[in-house]
């Protein structure tokens, strides 16, 4: 509601926001955003982050040990 004066501008802002929210949701849902969390965490504590390959590998190993059920 507090976007650019014109209706077109308002639509654009709403679309951008919707797109951003959707992307946020999908990245969180699929776990893709975990890498960002990890980088932020490393930056905060001054650690050198491992490579993305290594990070995803560890996540896959964890998934190996924690099977999730899928219902009928």
């Amino acid at each position: 509601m507090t976007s650019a004066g014109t209706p077109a501008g308002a639509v654009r802002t709403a679309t951008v926001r919707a797109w951003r929210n959707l992307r946020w949701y999908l990245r969180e849902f699929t776990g893709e955003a975990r890498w960002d969390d990890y980088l932020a965490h490393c930056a905060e504590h001054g650690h050198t982050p491992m490579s993305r390959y290594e990070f995803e590998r560890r996540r896959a190993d964890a998934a190996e040990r924690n099977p999730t059920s899928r219902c009928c």
Partner: protein
Amino acid sequence: MTGTMTTTDDAGGSPAPGRRRPSLQSTLTWSAVAVVGAICWGVLAIARGETISALWLLFAALCSYAIAYRFYSRFITYRVLAADDRRATPAERLENGVDFDVTDRRVLFGHHFAAIAGAGPLVGPVLAAQMGYLPGTIWIVVGVIFAGAVQDLTVLFFSMRRNGKSLGQMIREEIGLVGGIAALIAVFAIMIIILAVLALIVVNALAESPWGVFSIGLTIPIALFMGVYLRRLRPGRVLEATGIGVALLLLAIVSGGWIEDTGLGDALTLSKEWLVVALVVYGFVASVLPVWLLLTPRDYLSTFMKVGVIALLAVSLLIARPVLQADAVTDFAREGTGPVFAGSLFPFVFITIACGALSGFHALISSGTTPKMVAKESQVRLIGYGGMLMESFVAISALIAAVVIDQGLYFAMNSPAGATGGTAESAATFVQGLGFDTTAQSIAAASAAVQEDSLVSRTGGAPALAVGLAQVFSQAFGGGGQAFWYHFAIMFEALFILTAVDAGTRVGRFMLQDTLGNVWKKFGDLSWRPGNIIASAVVVGLWGSVLYIGVTDPLGGVNQLFPLFGIANQLLAAIALTLCTVLLIKHGKLRYAWVTGVPLVWDLVVTMTASWQKVFSADPRVGYFQQAQVYSDAQEAGEVLAPATDQGQMDQVIFNSTLNGILQAVFALLTLVVVVNAAVVIVKAIRANGLPTTEEPAVPSKIVEPSGLFPTAEEKRAMAEHGRLVGAGSGRSEAEEK
């Protein structure tokens, strides 16, 4: 009435709602929802013989869900369970970034829904449609509100208060060793049956359908490609990989139509027996392969397809506004002589529609990964209760798809080959005998429209649902395309059935390794290769043999096994509801024990009646042992009873029916063991006015998060306040920064 929240002082800033006078706006809104819902139900109840739009069904359900969520789930969450946002959840206390992980409520809702929703709520309602649309609708809506969603919510809550312990563990610790062992065996056995029946549905949908086999077959290389992409090419870029995967998947569906009449198509026209072999091999390989290669990418595909199709269906129903073709209540409901499954309305509607109304399998998920990820206690309402309402909505949509197609075609598709004779002509004669005016030409035309050789006796519910979906989609979007939509629907059902089958095989394998690990230590080591292979082979072998029995059963596998599947699932629900009732009483909340106690009693009455009939009924169409008896008497007299065609098939019927009867009796007895063990604990707990439980002690929470889907003004203020105190740091709730 915050009197039950005695665990911590009242100083916390949690939005635990007390009793407040509702605003005028809220009163008006909810009155309007109630009136609309009442009108929809009224129309469904009164209308007889005229044409009714399916939207009445849809809105009757939606209004009922809204009211149940707003009032009943709130009552359960705050008054009965006394969820307390001042207590830290296990995700907060034990956060390790692996299984214990504070997760945004909306994201967790998605995860939980993806885990509970599968083919069950799609298939059960389709089969139950033989009794008309009304019994199914009423059970789906009433069942979810008072039983299914209540079970999911309370199990989730109790498991969360116990650091995410599993159902079996909680039963062992809170009820007793005997009950715990019985529950463990029951869970394992029920899982095997569920996997077998799910696989049976896939086999029935893919048999003699080169298009379907081709498209489904391609999902394996697509998933492998995604796996390698995520591992090697672009690690962790899940959205990219899934985008590519979904595009390839759609291409796979379209291209199925191109190969159909080629040599490859002939090669892929597989019999049911060969499909069993393929599935068993697939299940075994999927269980021993590393998850990143096949399971994880497949799961992304199936989840996105699932959510996409459900959303598409909801929109299409609104656009197409199809008209109900089935009667409200058919004669089969009264007489119990339906060809799709035998037995009368009570108890068989209530076990045919398991998922979507009440599904015991959900208790395994509500006590599995989900409770370890909840950020705030009050969010169990959204995730547990809300997630199950959503699944129920899926079930209603599936029911609608089944009752808007020509009902003669419905019975021609869903009756076993022994009844329909297998050809369009004989099937037309059969359904005309049932009182429909469907002709052989129209059955053949329906098959041609979806480019299948024949739709006759394509049992299992999936093909009938696909025909319904194809009709709704092509009606909504125009331009025909029935064949594409049909195979799209088949693909989507098969995809997540297969995901459930390989995930289930893996879970079964872990259970087996874990249990046998108590006796033989080495076997319990999950990284020990021979152990993995043996356990996988045992699990696959078990469901594979039940599947084979079902596929070759002369009486029709779905007809014979689906009741076993439904009863098994509802028995598991009885076990879960028993645990919840015991826990409420142990926590000193006897006056609220009816919340889970009433659905428990109902479920026990239904499942025990059904089990009794399946074991002892003198009607050979219902009772397994009677069936075996009739066939063995005939065999002794040297006769061959239809639909068996020779003595070999007679032997098969006798063997299968006896086996089904034994399984049925064992499931019921295991459940009764748990219930009796629980009754002893309940009596003790009532005498002592409550008993100590294994609930973890309260630790104050430092997280501030909204309870519901949308934050209230009050919650936004609390979060802003908290953000100032802690300092901005987490980017987790980006979507909330408005």
